[in-house]
């Protein structure tokens, strides 16, 4: 296919529709090989208390050497205040105004807090951030975030790290239909390449995942699998699937069928 078909994130054209996390890999070497194998152009990172200067710098050097675009997150924040402060610290360290805004509302399922998310999003957008909110698959929440100025929304497929896939495809489809001009990325909960493919097939612009690759038996091979799945899903969406039918219809022509009606 020669036509340019890029993912758009706040005006930037990105070729890969797979965004990848940098956590939970068995080793730094497997992480870097997995990032490369995925074909991703965007990697998520975070900030934590400086423990060993050398260890932190080693990780940062590895990430910088990949040349990938950085998407910092506010993972672990439970209040608007924490998320705002961490977002500002990320902007300075990573030199980007992109922020994956995570604001946890429940520690059991790590569900985003929709009310705090709206409040924090407004403050950050007013401060010049380009917010990529990790949100639930609630249409009204997505609309509100969109109205605040979010050009990208990232509803969950399932709770973080569960690998359950798209638990509520009806909700996700509805968001896609109601927000046709917004960049939509399924973030979290995917476990299999088929889950990613399904998200792209239904018109989602991309997927963001980490555990599904890092937690696989062979993360590097799983990276390749997700890369292929995302491409397949996007091709399928562009190709437009055949209409589903309730009754069987033969695909091989019946005209000229030998032995036809001979019994």
């Amino acid at each position, binding site marked *: 296919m020669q036509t340019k078909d890029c993912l758009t994130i706040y005006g930037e054209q990105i070729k890969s529709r797979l965004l990848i996390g940098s956590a939970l890999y068995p080793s730094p070497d497997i992480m870097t090989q997995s990032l490369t194998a995925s074909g991703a152009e965007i990697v998520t990172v975070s900030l934590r208390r*400086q423990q060993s200067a050398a260890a932190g710098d080693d990780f940062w050097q590895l990430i910088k050497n990949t040349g990938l675009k950085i998407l910092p997150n506010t993972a672990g924040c439970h209040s608007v*205040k924490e998320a705002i402060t961490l977002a500002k*610290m990320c902007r300075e360290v990573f030199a980007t105004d992109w922020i994956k805004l995570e604001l946890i509302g429940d520690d059991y399922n790590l569900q985003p807090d929709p009310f705090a998310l709206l409040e924090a999003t407004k403050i950050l957008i007013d401060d010049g951030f380009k917010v990529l909110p990790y949100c639930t698959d609630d249409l009204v929440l997505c609309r509100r975030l969109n109205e605040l100025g979010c050009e990208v929304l990232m509803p969950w497929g399932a709770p973080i790290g569960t690998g359950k896939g798209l638990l509520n495809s009806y909700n996700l489809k509805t968001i896609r239909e109601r927000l046709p001009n917004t960049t939509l990325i399924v973030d979290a909960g995917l476990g299999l390449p088929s889950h990613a493919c399904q998200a792209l097939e239904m018109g989602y612009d991309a997927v963001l995942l980490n555990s599904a690759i890092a937690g696989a038996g062979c993360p590097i091979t799983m990276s390749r699998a997700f890369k292929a799945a995302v491409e397949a899903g996007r091709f399928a969406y562009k190709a437009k699937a055949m209409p589903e039918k309730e009754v069987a219809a033969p695909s091989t022509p019946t005209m000229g069928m030998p032995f036809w009606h001979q019994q």
Partner: protein
Amino acid sequence: MNITINGELLNVNSKALVEVLQSFGAAAPFAVAINSEFIPQSQHGNYVLNEGDSVELLSPIQGG
């Protein structure tokens, strides 16, 4: 003067943020928040710490 850095209680001789960070062994890249407020790097040079301040010194780490 007593302050905390990354949750660790410390007795420091200087009130200058930059000197305290240096003596703590802060290594770039990092960002600083004091009492939960982000302090941009441009303000580090003039920032004076107070008794009981809580300093957060954060650096890049893996994230999903």
